[in-house]
């Protein structure tokens, strides 16, 4: 059979997108933010503040308070007081109403929150607007309804709250992660001390304003800002009953070690290096979209990103060709522009890390392919990148890069790809693309990962449990299963 030339996707057009920036004049931001403890904004004991910048322009947006051990202690005391005096005694149906209120207030202020999320974190406005903020509101709305129905969730058991939950969240989905943490904790009757990541504190602080506005009793939710030591101080605090952490596997292991031998309960949602597997019978055009969404969604700052692509050999040429064509069409630049696909890298530190991995990939002998797009001179940006001819042993195929970088391998048989996909310490997520139903179920049952997307990728929902196997952590967030980590029986 004569070899057919793969068709080129015709994306080319003379029409260019006109700039379409989202307005920022309607948002309310202060020059300086304090710590939210016991229902009030209070100055940090250290008297210190640090700058939060817009990673797309490197310009300062606001000053954020740096908490210390004393502040952590007052936040925990406030949370304990609120737990003992009000929150644990309140009828569950009333607790629910507060959480519903928070959901509604987020919806009402969705546009403002989206813009701030994009300004502070660098993600495209389309994503903040359509994914992060609506999902955050929905998460509160979903868990609000659980508050007075917990006895139905666990057959033959009487669930009880734990007490004070210390929660530490990352910078990739700032408001959404705050919602993932706070909503189930409150619904199950716990009180909270939350620490957002130092580069993305603003939407958590806006959430603190919303919480204040909602009339939630003082101290039920406390939000304290700062760098790593603040999180460490929470982890080691004697009066915290539960630690919930989302972030890197390295820090997760440190936390697990730090609380060893104590009675603290722990949930870890850690790193990933997901396999996205394309079989020859897959709907190729959809699969290409799935690969793009899998790795370039949120600049690749996604723990469940499909960062390892496995393409069946027979279609590898076609898939890679189409992938390269599609890569060219991605718009990289101003996160506030509604046409932007890939926004700014969250921080200088992360940018350096990604660039370091690009060097490692090339030095290890993989073939680098980047979009020819221009990137802004100011701010932190990376061209979307493919690595071809990679192998299992390459560091770019083993380590979490957390950027728009895809490592591509090929495979021949199902057994081979299952072996390769599972042969990694991580196990957060995976993707499978094939038209054959029986093959989907074969794969989805054999892949050792907590979330498996078949013929789709990077979908999230408040009702859908999320979390990892192996070194990607334990415990689930979302859905009925997301209640368990905040309860005892």
């Amino acid at each position, binding site marked *: 059979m004569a070899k057919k030339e793969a068709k080129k996707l015709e994306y080319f057009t003379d029409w260019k997108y006109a700039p379409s920036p989202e307005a920022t004049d309607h948002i309310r931001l202060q020059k300086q933010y304090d710590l939210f403890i016991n229902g009030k904004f209070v100055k940090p004991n250290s008297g210190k503040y640090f700058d939060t910048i817009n990673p797309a322009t490197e310009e300062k947006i606001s000053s954020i308070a740096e908490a210390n051990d004393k502040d952590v202690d007052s936040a925990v005391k406030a949370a304990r007081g609120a737990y003992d005096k009000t929150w644990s005694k309140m009828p569950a149906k009333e607790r629910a109403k507060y959480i519903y209120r928070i959901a509604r207030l987020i919806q009402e202020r969705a546009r403002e929150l989206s813009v701030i999320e994009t300004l502070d974190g660098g993600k495209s406005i389309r994503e903040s607007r359509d994914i992060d903020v609506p999902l955050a509101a*929905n998460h509160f709305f979903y868990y609000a309804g659980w508050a007075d129905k917990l006895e139905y969730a666990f057959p033959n*058991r009487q669930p009880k709250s734990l007490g004070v939950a210390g929660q530490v969240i990352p910078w990739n989905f700032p408001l959404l992660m705050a919602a993932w943490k706070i909503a189930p904790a409150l619904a199950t009757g716990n009180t909270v001390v939350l620490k957002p990541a130092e580069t993305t504190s603003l939407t958590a602080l806006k959430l603190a304003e919303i919480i204040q506005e909602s009339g939630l009793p003082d101290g039920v939710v406390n939000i304290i800002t700062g760098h790593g030591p603040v999180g460490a101080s929470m982890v080691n605090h004697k009066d915290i009953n539960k630690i919930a952490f989302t972030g890197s596997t390295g820090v997760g292991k440190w936390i*697990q070690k730090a609380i*060893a031998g104590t009675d603290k309960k722990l949930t870890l949602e*850690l790193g990933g290096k997901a396999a996205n597997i394309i079989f020859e019978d897959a709907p190729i055009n959809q699969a290409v979209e799935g690969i793009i969404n899998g790795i370039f969604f949120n600049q690749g700052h996604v723990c469940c990103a499909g960062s390892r692509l496995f393409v069946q050999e027979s279609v590898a040429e076609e898939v890679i060709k189409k992938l390269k064509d599609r890569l060219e069409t991605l718009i990289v630049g101003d996160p506030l522009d509604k046409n932007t696909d890939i926004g700014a890298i969250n921080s200088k530190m992360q940018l350096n890390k990604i660039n370091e991995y690009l060097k490692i990939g090339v030095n290890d002998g993989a073939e680098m392919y980047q979009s020819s797009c221009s990137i802004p001179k100011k701010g932190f940006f990376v061209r979307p990148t493919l690595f071809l001819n990679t192998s299992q042993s390459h560091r770019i195929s083993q380590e979490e890069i957390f950027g728009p970088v895809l490592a591509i391998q090929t495979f021949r048989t199902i057994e081979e790809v299952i072996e390769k996909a599972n042969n990694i310490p991580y196990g957060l997520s995976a993707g499978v693309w094939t038209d054959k139903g029986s093959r989907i179920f074969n794969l*989805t049952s054999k892949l050792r990962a*907590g979330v498996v997307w078949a013929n*789709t990728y990077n979908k999230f929902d408040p009702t859908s449990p999320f979390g990892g196997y192996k070194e990607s952590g334990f415990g689930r967030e979302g859905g009925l299963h997301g209640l368990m980590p905040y309860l005892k029986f």
Partner: protein
Amino acid sequence: MERIEVLKTYKIFIGGQFPRTESGRYYPLKLKNNMTVNVSLSSRKDYRNAVIAARGAFSGWSARAAFNRGQILYRIAEMLEGRKEQFLEELKQLGYTPTAAKKEVEQSIDRLVYYAGWCDKYQQLFSSVNPVATSHFNFSVPEPMGVVAILADESSALLGLVSVIAPAIAGGNTCIVLASESKPTCSITFAEVIATSDVPGGVVNIVTGSRKELHSHFSSHMDVNAIINCNTEKDFNKTIGENASLNVKRVFTWNRNWSDEKEQGPYYITDLQEIKTTWHPIENIGVSGIKY
């Protein structure tokens, strides 16, 4: 002349085989009849061999039909019932009163039957179909964690062992168990029961030895997914927790009174399960007017 009784050499149980410890070491255990048993003082290497066996058995065992796993657990109960007298005698030699021994064996048999029944039922109770807002079919199911390391209850010769092995393997995991140090003989006789119950080699591995020596190895092995300690030693538990962080092992302290009927249930199975969520798009046919 009076017939001389043939005494048993107590070995360990790895991958369906009965070797002595590779280390050649032993510790003496004095029985009530004044005979001494030279119990295998298992080494780190024995444990590592057992982990290899358990990992090798995992894919086959977890892929068994749940119904089949139920039948095999029931078969273990049948075999145990058939060898009841032997266990009664062995327990007596370990210091159990006849009443206590009878209770220990009967509860162990009943517990196996209890978990046999759970094998194909807990999935239905703890799975969910999730009503996501987008056009996707989304469901979550429990799946076994993998290889589970267990430091069994020191105070119990048989029931403590059965009460942790049964939920682990009912849920499709494979395991390595360190038997009670002071009451190890029954664990090896129980291994003989397992070996004759259609349980594939490597699904259950039992070693005897020192918890003080082995707890850090049990918790630090990089190819073990979960660790359970059924004892209360504070400093051991701290070490176990710290070592577990090396590969984010799931850690459980099951310090329970296993003779309490309440200390059984599906939550012992689900503790050792991961929840997997699967998404698939649902086609939206945009033709207007179609009603059904």
